[in-house]
């Protein structure tokens, strides 16, 4: 079975959008299992409530807000990472049972389970003797 997962850049493949502030593109793994696609994203510093997962017409969108962290009393010695909102869009061509999509967030990692629709699952056909 061939599976085709295309990722699109931050702006998505729809109309160009303008955004204010800083946006990040979190790293993502996608794994195919027999009965589902698994999307795993590193979103350190986000909170469960701020993450938005949306599946619409074969397009999966992950979006979230991470509050800024600098406070004026601090003297910054080293700043290697930025903090801000994140956004990614994926086009998933597998037939997904959108009613059963669920997601969990633990230790800064978002896992989205995309169960395959019955029609897309591999099926073994019994050969019967006549």
């Amino acid at each position, binding site marked *: 079975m061939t*599976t085709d*997962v295309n*990722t699109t850049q*931050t702006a998505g493949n729809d109309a160009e959008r303008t955004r*204010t*502030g*800083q*946006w*990040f*593109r979190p*790293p*993502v*793994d*996608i*794994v*195919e*299992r*027999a009965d589902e*696609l*698994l999307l*795993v*994203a*590193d*979103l*350190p*510093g*986000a*909170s469960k409530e701020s993450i938005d997962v949306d599946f619409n017409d074969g397009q999966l969108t992950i979006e979230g807000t991470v509050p*800024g*962290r*600098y406070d004026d*009393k*601090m*003297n*910054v*010695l*080293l*700043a*290697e*990472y*930025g*903090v*801000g909102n994140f956004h990614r869009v994926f086009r998933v061509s597998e037939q997904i049972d959108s009613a059963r999509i669920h997601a969990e967030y633990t*230790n*800064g*990692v978002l896992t989205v389970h995309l169960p395959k629709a019955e029609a897309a699952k591999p099926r073994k056909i019994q050969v019967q003797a006549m």
Partner: protein
Amino acid sequence: MTLIPWKQRRPESAGQLLPASGFRTEMDRLFDSFFSDAPSVWGERGGWPSLAWQPAMDVEETDKHVLVRAEIPGVKADDLDVSIQHGALVISGEKKESEERKESGYLYQERRYGSFRREITLPTAVDEQNVKAEYKDGVLHVTLEKSQEALPKKIQVTAK
């Protein structure tokens, strides 16, 4: 790694990080996919396992504290090791790839796995007995108290 204070605070909205980090991610991905396609002598998954990933860190200081933050998503608090050695803060641990995922096929892989170690020279002497480390939502927060000797001392000027 020695820390030199920033002269200027970078506003969060500067947006400078975005294109550069996106470019780096993309280059990393191209690099990884190039090496994982070739027959590998370096490891089962290809690539350069010895070039382990390193968590990004922030260090800030206030009058009394030094605050260190590291982005380490996807580890358990028990798998993180924080220590102070010769005036340096050492953070090490391992980000494990679940067996289940290893067995099924990756369609896309951008996240990094493996062990990491980072050592950061602390800007001042700290009270080694008073170090707090917390792990929340994939970010490790280490709060260190400056030792008494390192605190600024006010000297009274007396008029004669």
